[in-house]
């Protein structure tokens, strides 16, 4: 196999090397060197990713096999990387946004001690390595390695400041919730192995389409497998019911929130389903598609309502991420895989931008995250302010910013499924615009509400932080132009054309006419602008006041955490207590000690046989011989 793409292993290898060097040398290297190695390795991967992207531009795909990862009987799982349109898009997003965030981190984390600084960059590099493995894996097992890797890094980075007990709890929460999803994913993989005797994507999809003799999936298999994979995705991509870890994950350093909990890791679920689109497009997966659609929509709506009343700048963004992920799942459920991938891309730009912007704000406020203490920051932090504005406009979906095109594609696919879906999705999009601009106005306009000292300390962030903001702002603005819908210009949907060989969207149930499409776009634009103006009217001069009534329910996140606490965590604790205090000391210890005591007692009794009388020995010998002959004699019959 003499293909230039065979060297793609370098893409994940570079961050892995960066992880090893930074991780092992964190006590010896200077901060500058650590920053250079950390960012440089990602830059190298980014350049390689661009090269790979150019290679696959014309519909090339390549599976690079390196060695057998597992070979048991006739099940052979090679360590193979698959390069095609879908993975190359994700490679660009991960390494591109990842690189900017690394650069940003060199400045944001500069007050850490060198050892912790090195640990931080080692984790970040390990994360990028896992994520690259996840999107490049040519079979479910390699994907799963990356899947677990990002979960681990998420845990490590959420609990990065491990001296605070709350942060450790948040890290545990993220890890455990992810594990629930991972379990479903694992079961799905085993199920696939029993039916297809292979885990490689090409092979499994061929079996699913009935192209392989002697192996097939029944309709039931398809339903269960797609559903289990989706449950796996709900864990990683923070959907109902496993979404509560994501807002708590904001305990980690802000660039981590930008990288992991907005731009890349949480999109792993979207990637996995888009990658398995050939399974999800089968007729047998109809039920799963509906479940995905409604779960996505419900998550989008629920998270958007919660985001309306949050007062922590990062929590607002976190719930907004959950909500946008819900949109992506809505798109996946309606079969608009390209729209979902498109939204992943634009969302990576503007959400990374806003998280980094919020990091810049937190940096300036000396660690303060409560937006009620802020206000009027726009005058002091011009670059942060204007880039944040661009991010908000983009996520709100104002023409011609990137969010408009991707969200419009999703809304359109919802409309094609049913107008009711469209209505709810549009309402959620309006909420999105409202809460984002609420955040913007409360933070950046009006009067400053913090302390004197904070007011004195306010300053624009250094270049290493503002430059990524500016680049991401440009991308947030222009990122949508790769997927201009066909209604504006024939053949302008370059992303759709690019992905077509790998990701085939389901045929639309009923084609929407161009005039309807224009009407829908006009409607959403007008309503979004109205929603922005409403936010301006309400929050332009924000005064602090306590939330009451329904607002209090929203501020407390619909009490979902409390519900989980009482319904799942507390009973589990009680159950654990029973096991610890009763079952373990009484039953388990009893069995173990009892076995010892039995042997002790038995041997004391048996000792009496050892009389020392030769006669008794001989008697026993004769009796046992008679016994053996007797058994022999009767068993012969």
């Amino acid at each position, binding site marked *: 196999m003499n293909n230039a793409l065979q060297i793609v292993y370098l893409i994940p290898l570079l961050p892995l090397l960066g992880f090893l060097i930074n991780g092992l040398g964190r006590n010896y290297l200077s901060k500058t060197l650590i920053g250079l190695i950390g960012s440089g390795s990602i830059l190298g991967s980014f350049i390689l990713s661009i090269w790979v992207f150019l290679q696959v531009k014309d519909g090339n795909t390549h599976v690079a096999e390196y060695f057998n990862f597992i070979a048991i009987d006739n099940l052979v799982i090679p360590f193979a990387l698959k390069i095609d349109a879908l993975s190359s898009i994700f490679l660009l997003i991960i390494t591109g946004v990842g690189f900017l965030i690394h650069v940003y981190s060199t400045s944001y984390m500069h007050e850490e001690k060198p050892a912790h600084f090195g640990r931080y960059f080692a984790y970040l590099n390990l994360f990028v390595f896992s994520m690259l493995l996840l999107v490049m894996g040519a079979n479910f097992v390699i994907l799963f390695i990356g899947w677990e890797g990002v979960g681990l890094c998420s845990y490590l980075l959420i609990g990065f400041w491990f001296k605070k007990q709350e942060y450790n709890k948040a890290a545990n929460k993220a890890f455990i919730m992810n594990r629930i999803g991972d379990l479903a994913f694992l079961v799905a993989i085993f199920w696939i192995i029993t039916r297809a005797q292979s885990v490689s994507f090409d092979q499994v999809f061929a079996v699913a389409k009935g192209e392989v003799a002697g192996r097939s999936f029944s309709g039931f298999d398809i339903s269960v497998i797609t559903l289990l994979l989706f449950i796996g995705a709900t864990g990683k991509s923070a959907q109902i019911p496993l979404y509560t870890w994501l807002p708590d994950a904001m305990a980690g350093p802000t660039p981590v929130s930008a990288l992991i909990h907005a731009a890349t890791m949480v999109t792993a679920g979207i990637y996995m389903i888009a990658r398995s689109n050939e399974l999800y497009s089968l007729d047998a997966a109809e039920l799963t598609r509906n479940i995905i659609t409604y779960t996505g929509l419900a998550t989008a709506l629920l998270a958007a309502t919660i985001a309306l009343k949050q007062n922590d700048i990062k929590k607002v963004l976190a719930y907004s991420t959950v909500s946008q992920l819900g949109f992506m799942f809505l798109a996946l459920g309606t079969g608009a895989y390209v729209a979902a991938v498109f939204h992943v891309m634009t969302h990576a730009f503007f959400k990374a931008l806003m998280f980094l912007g919020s990091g810049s704000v937190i940096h300036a406020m000396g660690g303060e995250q409560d937006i009620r203490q802020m206000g009027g920051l726009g005058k002091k932090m011009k670059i942060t302010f204007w880039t944040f504005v661009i991010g908000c406009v983009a996520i709100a979906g104002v023409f011609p910013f990137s969010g408009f095109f991707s969200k419009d594609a999703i809304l359109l696919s919802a409309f094609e499924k049913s107008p009711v879906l469209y209505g709810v999705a549009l309402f959620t999009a309006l909420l999105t615009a409202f809460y984002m601009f609420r955040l913007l106005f409360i933070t950046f306009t009006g009067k400053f509400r913090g302390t004197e000292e904070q007011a004195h300390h306010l300053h624009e962030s250094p270049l290493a932080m503002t430059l990524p903001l500016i680049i991401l702002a440009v991308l947030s603005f222009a990122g949508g132009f790769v997927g201009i819908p066909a209604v504006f210009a024939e053949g302008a949907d370059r992303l759709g054309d690019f992905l077509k060989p790998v990701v085939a969207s389901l045929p639309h149930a009923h084609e929407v006419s161009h005039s309807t499409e224009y009407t829908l776009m006009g409607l959403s634009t007008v309503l979004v602008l109205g929603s922005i103006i409403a936010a301006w009217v309400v929050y332009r001069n924000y005064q602090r006041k306590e939330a009451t009534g329904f607002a209090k329910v929203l501020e407390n996140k619909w009490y979902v955490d409390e519900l989980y606490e009482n319904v799942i965590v507390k009973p589990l604790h009680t159950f654990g207590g029973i096991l610890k205090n009763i079952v373990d000391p009484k039953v388990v210890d009893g069995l173990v000690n009892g076995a010892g005591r039995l042997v002790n007692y038995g041997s004391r009794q048996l000792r009496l046989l*050892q*009389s*020392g*009388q*030769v*006669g008794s020995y*001989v*008697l026993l010998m*004769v009796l046992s011989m008679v016994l053996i002959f007797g058994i022999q004699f009767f068993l012969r019959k």
Partner: protein
Amino acid sequence: MPINYYILLSLALFTIGIVGVLTRRNAIIIFMCIELMLNAVNLLLVAFSKMHLNAAILANDAASTAGTDGQLFVFFIMVVAAAEVSVGLAIIVMMYRNIHSVDVNFLNRLKH
């Protein structure tokens, strides 16, 4: 003579041997009983060997060696028994010299 008689005689000898070993306390008598058991087995082996050889001759197989291994065993048993007697009697002699008795129940120090 039918083989049954040999078997019954041999069984009687063997049982006498076992009962003797189990009931007597005198080491020399126990020893004799063991010899009795060994010879009961020898008798049986020889009897069967002769039976098989007769059967082969009756089947007009003059060159047959049927039953010879049985007699071979008998020689082995005799040799082993002779060796055993020499060692065993020596032990009994030593025992008598030390404790002035050949009563096996007197020797119960094996349990320690």
